[in-house]
């Protein structure tokens, strides 16, 4: 039972079917003149439209990238490069506002910029994981060139008030970038209504292929590219177009768009059942992050007295595949920066479990999953010096 869909999600067989012709006979380079190239170009256009529809953008506002990470990097670094040309000693144009709970793709890009003299405001969040709009507005100054705040969080699933964030940004004429990698296909994402100027998304989180994503850039906002070359993507992102993957992203976007209502209901039913059963059956278990402003497919629970990795490994033995915090955090041993921002002590945050639901999960599986978790937590607490049996 795979409940780690926020880390990556299985490719929808319909999506693979759509890709296969482009992996086989339709191998043309979209830049070439003859029919293979023309077919590739048409496939590209169709996919661009499918992605645009999903977030209520225009087709030519979509740039294909190699994934969410590249999209986030492009958004931030392109703004920086653009402003470099306008900077003066009096106006260094070197301030960016973000939050403490961003994905590493945003956070580490910001940290990198700090090494080169940029000032970053990392907004704190409240115990629910939400930023404070007053604090955001207060953080803005004359040198602020970008506000980058994620649409929803990849660990605890908290949804930020993008509409209001965008309003504040626009009051001060600052572009607003939102990393919507976890939101797209899970909740309504509408760049117009939610006042988003730049948005990142990634295919492999919505049952599309890995290695492909998109960046939405609002018409009128021209940004220098992060990757220069042959002039593909209207010179906004060069490199031979990855047609099979682009077709896959398009198809995944189309499916996600068509099924959004259904998906939300499906996910929420399972989520609520999991939360209800786990918290009632396991003493000293607590939900991390807002219950109200939360992705319908995210369950994030901490259990006192135990540690996350051993929990995950034991659960995997029982056939339940889940995550501790973010998929990325296994690269480093520090506790989750998101839970730290929620003021949860390291010893407690380490006992956290993320279940992220996908279309393949079924309501009938909830009891099996809950039983596996209950047994495992009980076992680990038995051998834990921090738990009073």
């Amino acid at each position: 039972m795979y409940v780690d869909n926020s880390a990556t999600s299985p490719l929808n067989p319909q999506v693979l079917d759509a890709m296969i012709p482009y992996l086989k006979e339709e191998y043309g380079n979209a830049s070439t003149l003859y029919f293979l190239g023309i077919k590739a170009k048409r496939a590209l256009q169709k996919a661009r439209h499918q992605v645009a529809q999903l977030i209520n953008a225009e087709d030519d506002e979509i740039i294909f990238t190699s994934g969410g990470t590249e999209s986030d990097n492009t958004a931030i670094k392109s703004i920086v490069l653009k402003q470099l040309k306008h900077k003066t000693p009096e106006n260094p144009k070197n301030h960016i506002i973000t939050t403490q709970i961003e994905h590493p793709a945003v956070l580490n890009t910001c940290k990198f910029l700090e090494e080169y003299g940029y000032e970053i405001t990392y907004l704190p969040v409240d115990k629910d994981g939400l930023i404070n709009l007053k604090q955001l507005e207060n953080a803005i100054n004359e040198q602020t060139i970008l506000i980058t705040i994620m649409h929803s969080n990849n660990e605890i699933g908290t949804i930020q008030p993008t509409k209001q964030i965008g309003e504040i940004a626009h009051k001060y004429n600052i572009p607003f970038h939102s990393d919507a990698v976890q939101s797209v296909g899970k909740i309504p994402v509408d760049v117009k209504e939610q006042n988003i100027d730049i948005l990142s998304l990634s295919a492999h989180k919505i049952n599309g292929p890995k290695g492909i994503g998109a960046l939405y850039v609002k018409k009128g906002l021209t940004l220098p590219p992060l990757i220069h070359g042959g002039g593909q993507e209207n010179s906004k992102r060069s490199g031979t177009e990855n047609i099979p993957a682009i077709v896959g992203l398009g198809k995944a976007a189309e499916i996600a768009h068509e099924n959004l209502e259904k998906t939300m209901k499906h996910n929420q039913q399972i989520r609520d059942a999991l939360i209800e059963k786990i918290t009632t059956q396991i003493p000293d278990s607590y939900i991390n992050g807002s219950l109200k402003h939360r992705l319908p497919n995210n369950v994030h629970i901490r259990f006192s007295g135990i540690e996350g990795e051993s929990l995950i490994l034991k659960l995997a033995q029982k056939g339940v595949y889940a995550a501790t915090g973010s998929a990325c955090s296994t690269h480093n041993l520090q506790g989750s920066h998101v839970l730290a921002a929620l003021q949860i002590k390291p010893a407690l945050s380490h006992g956290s479990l993320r279940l992220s639901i996908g279309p393949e999960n079924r309501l009938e599986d909830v009891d099996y999953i809950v039983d596996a978790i209950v047994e495992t937590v009980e076992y680990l607490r038995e051998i834990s010096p921090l738990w009073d049996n």
Partner: protein
Amino acid sequence: MDYTQKVIENYTNPQNTGVIEDADGEGTVGNPVCGDIMTIYIKVDENENIEDIKFSTFGCGAAIATSSMITQMAKGINIDEAYEITRNDVAEELGGLPAVKLHCSNLAADALQKAIENYKKERN
């Protein structure tokens, strides 16, 4: 590197878990970075051999595996010999540990040494 088969066996099915209520020695170590904590309990016979040893651990797969491994290595041997077991010995016995875990969760040797020191102090 990934967890070896030996590591996997030891966290899947750890040996000597639990508490010795009337222990002769007890040692607890913790790592401040992420809060791993492990306690080792020993029971020592008249020849100063470790006749029983148990552990409780709050920590990752590696933390559980090293705890389990050291209890097996120390059981039945003399406390002076047991005192000489190093973190490296434990890691080696497990067929190696991932680099990031080597210095972090490999605390069992320290906990055992503390337990032996505690035993000696109590006895004096």
